[in-house]
């Protein structure tokens, strides 16, 4: 029979480590995915995935059953990613503040990338590349919002910035993505 996540957590807590193996099997793919989208580096993504599972294991006692296990795991993962990106200095308070002042003005460099036109045979990859090409602060909010499915307020809380700033970042990021993906969108409708 198929155990539920909650069952597996319970079994792990009573010392049955193979139960946690099953959770790793179930979720290392989506966790890796999230980490990769956040960090844009395969090696870092593997590293963070392992780190996230270790932290989750250590904190398993504090996991509340009413929360979805993957949601909880995602939260740990994106926190680890945010720490790493902070260490790379991609989320400096000054750069975020500057963002807010620019408000809803479109960013420079938002014109579409001619390079994108040449990859019509690999449409899917272009989507990933468009996300990867965003500066750290934009990529982080886009990944949290659209891959992890987290609300604007939650993003604001995790990054410890006002939700108005998150909205501005999202607005600008979406405009950048639209511009980057425009050639593909045009192809689709032909």
């Amino acid at each position: 029979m198929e155990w539920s996540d909650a069952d597996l957590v319970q079994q792990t807590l009573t010392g049955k480590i193979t139960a946690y193996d099953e959770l790793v099997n179930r979720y290392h793919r989506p966790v890796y995915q999230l980490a990769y989208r956040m960090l844009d580096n395969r090696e870092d993504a593997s590293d963070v995935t392992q780190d996230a599972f270790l932290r989750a294991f250590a904190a398993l006692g504090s996991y509340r059953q009413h929360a979805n296990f993957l949601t909880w795991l995602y939260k740990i993962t994106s926190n680890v990613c945010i720490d790493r990106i902070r260490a790379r200095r991609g989320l400096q308070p000054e750069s975020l503040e500057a963002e807010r002042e620019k408000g809803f003005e479109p960013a420079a460099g938002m014109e579409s990338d001619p390079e994108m036109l040449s990859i019509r045979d690999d449409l899917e990859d272009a989507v990933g590349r468009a996300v990867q090409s965003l500066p750290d602060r934009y990529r982080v909010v886009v990944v949290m919002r659209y891959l992890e499915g987290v609300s604007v307020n939650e993003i604001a809380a995790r990054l410890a910035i006002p939700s108005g700033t998150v909205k501005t970042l999202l607005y600008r990021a979406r405009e950048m993505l639209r511009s980057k993906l425009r050639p593909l969108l045009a192809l689709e409708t032909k």
Partner: protein
Amino acid sequence: MSFEFQHDNPLELRCRPHQEAIHRLLDGELTEIERERLTDHLMACRHCSQRFLEMRRTLQMISHAPAINPPADLAANIQNAVRSQAAISSTQTNHHIARTVTRPVTIRNDGLDAVLTVQERLIFSLCLLAAMLAILKIPLFESALGGLWSVILATSQLMWTYLTDIPILGTLLQITASALGGAFHILSNAYSTTFSGLTLLVNLILDLVIVLIIGLAILQARRSERATYR
């Protein structure tokens, strides 16, 4: 702004507010009236309606970005790492010679730390500080009943720390405990004859400090109210 929207028609001034509305629509943030206004405009303006369609499709593409395959040995590596971590922590709890075991570098924190943001850590620290002050001043400055306030307060601080997933409930608990306990406290100390004016003054100042710390913690909690557990 000559650089923007190279591939678009020059953006008309009347379209500007609708650009922002498109984003808010996709975020589900528009009111009924704003929605109608935008729909009217989208039907009349080819430029904006195309932009809307593009934006919607972009978001669909992003949400369904293709999966990236992790390295084939990732799951096995994680499982091994978890096993060695489990071995280490059981050695430590059994008070064996933990010093000889080096922890893997990947574990920088464990326990709650791993799931807390900086802000949440700050909230907990503030709560614990308030709780400590409240408890420490019992033997020094409190009449029997006044001590009750401190105890209730301290308990609620610790409860809050425990109920970390539900900051709203924690906040309510805080306010209720402070209000109830505060009433007790004022009444009991006012009728107590054992304390001199100076002691009462020091007590009052300490109370103020505690209330200030709690206020700070509540403020932080309101800023970091989390949506995961809605």
